[in-house]
């Protein structure tokens, strides 16, 4: 079996990587109705990744075995303006295909991503995911992350 490589995403990875993004957004949908996935999610996922590859402030890495993409991490470097440390690397997407889970790939991708973000100037790392995603909460807690900010939501459509 071919080795798994963790590396920067390339143009030819986009189509398959988009599938992982769609899977992840659909997983988020399970946690809260305010994460209801839009109808043209596939098209948007492709655009999202294409823009990420082209952005200087964004990290997009994949775990691949040959041509097959097994995992994806996207993070953005952000200026916190008022607070120190000033620069944070925010992980917006981390998704591993079910078949590739439980093999330290999530951890390997996270460490790879953190290293890259630090090189770009990040002094702290945050991760965003739905509040109800206990699996993600456990994953990050286990690696020394703690809750930093609460985002409370209230739907106002049609009211």
């Amino acid at each position, binding site marked *: 079996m071919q080795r798994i490589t963790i590396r920067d995403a390339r143009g030819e990875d986009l189509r398959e990587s988009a599938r992982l993004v769609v*899977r992840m957004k*659909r*997983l988020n949908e*399970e946690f809260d109705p305010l994460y209801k996935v839009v109808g043209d999610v596939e098209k948007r996922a492709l655009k999202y990744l294409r823009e990420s590859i082209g952005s200087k402030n964004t990290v997009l890495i994949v775990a691949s075995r040959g041509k097959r993409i097994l995992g994806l991490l996207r993070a953005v470097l952000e200026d916190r303006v008022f607070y120190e440390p000033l620069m944070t690397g925010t992980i917006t997407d981390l998704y591993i*295909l*079910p*078949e590739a889970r439980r093999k330290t790939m999530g951890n390997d991708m996270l460490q790879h991503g953190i290293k890259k973000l630090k090189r770009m100037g990040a002094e702290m790392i945050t991760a965003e995911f739905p509040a109800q995603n206990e*699996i993600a909460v456990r994953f990050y807690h286990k690696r020394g992350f703690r809750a930093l900010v609460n985002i409370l939501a209230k739907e106002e459509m049609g009211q």
Partner: protein
Amino acid sequence: MPSKEPGDEYSRKAIRYSAFYGGKIGTAPKVPIRSLDDFSIWYTPGVAAVSRAIAKNRELSFEYTNRWNTIGILTDGTRVLGLGNIGPEGSLPVMEGKALIYKYLGGVDAIPIPIRVDGVEQFVATAKSLEPALGGINLEDIASPKCFEILERLRKEMSIPIWHDDQQGTAGVTLAALYNALELTDRDLRTSKITLFGSGAANIATAKLLIEAGADAGEMILVDSKGVLNAERDDMDQLLLRNRWKYELALKTNEARVKGGLAEALRNADVLIAAATPGPNLIKKQEIARMNKRAVAFLLANPIPEMWPDDAAAAGAEIVATGRSDFPNQVNNSLLFPAAFRGVLDVRAKTITDSMVIAAAQEMAKSAREKGLRKNYIIPDMLDWEVLPRVAAAIGMQAQREGQARKKVSSDVIYKGAKKLIDTSRKISQLLVQRGIIPAPPP
């Protein structure tokens, strides 16, 4: 070949008789009451000494009371056989029927306990609160997938055997039949390619038990309403959150990553175990024809199998089994659950493990083998009474080997004790009818 259910006549009788008898079971004394004075022994003041002894040593409740022979049949009525979610009261007649079978075939005193609970936590808390009164719990007719979590939790958190008949019962009896079907077709469980059609409680439990018994998970394929289960399926994350038992099987099984539907899953399969939805046209002849030569097909949906057995045979299945008594090879839980509980109660077991279920299945299969296997006889039928104490002894011995029994008993003692209890139970029932204490049913 029968093609229609004789349901209407049974339904009419069931309503009339249920009203006439006011239910199917009751309690009866098991000690002599020679005079009212005896109540001073059985009740106050004498009983206080017994209570004090048990208060000092809880384990004595298995010796000084009927706890050793008492189980609760617990249900929330969310998935009653063929009826769906009809609530706890609606499930009561079914639980009474189950209790009747427990008594008649296993000599087990089973109490129907439908409970009004909301969700897994309440169910688990309620079941745990009943532990002091019971020697075991039979979970019944609980919707999937919460039934998996309830069984898993109660097995972990209680010190009495917990049995969910829709899982262990069906899986155990299926394994028993499969052992013999494989023997007749010169196969080995470890190398057979098995396709399971339907991924409800029964087949998920069956897949897990088969793997535990040595089947090759990688060669196994499960099919549900969305098609072949595989690790790449789009709904994997939904399964992870909603049905992690199915998720685990999706990761473990189908190494070849077969995709598609039943037709693809049956290509070159040795065995089909269907526990999907009632047929008879759910499986097509062409699909069975894709299986390997000398195929084995278990068509277990009730009341109508996924396809008629003669159609399966015509399409190439050498051994066919169903869940019905009017066809040969009935894969019937009723031969397993009374015997299983008879065995675990007789050794005061603390749990029922998968390997105990496998031991029971092996004994059941052996019992049929000794009578002479034939295409139409791969598993004991309801008239093979001797299988019940044999299975009881097998599971009781396995409990002791695994250190899960409170009592050390030899196989012979369990067998003879179980046989006596079962025989006595039947005799009492017959005697009460003969003496007119249980009146004949109304015309």
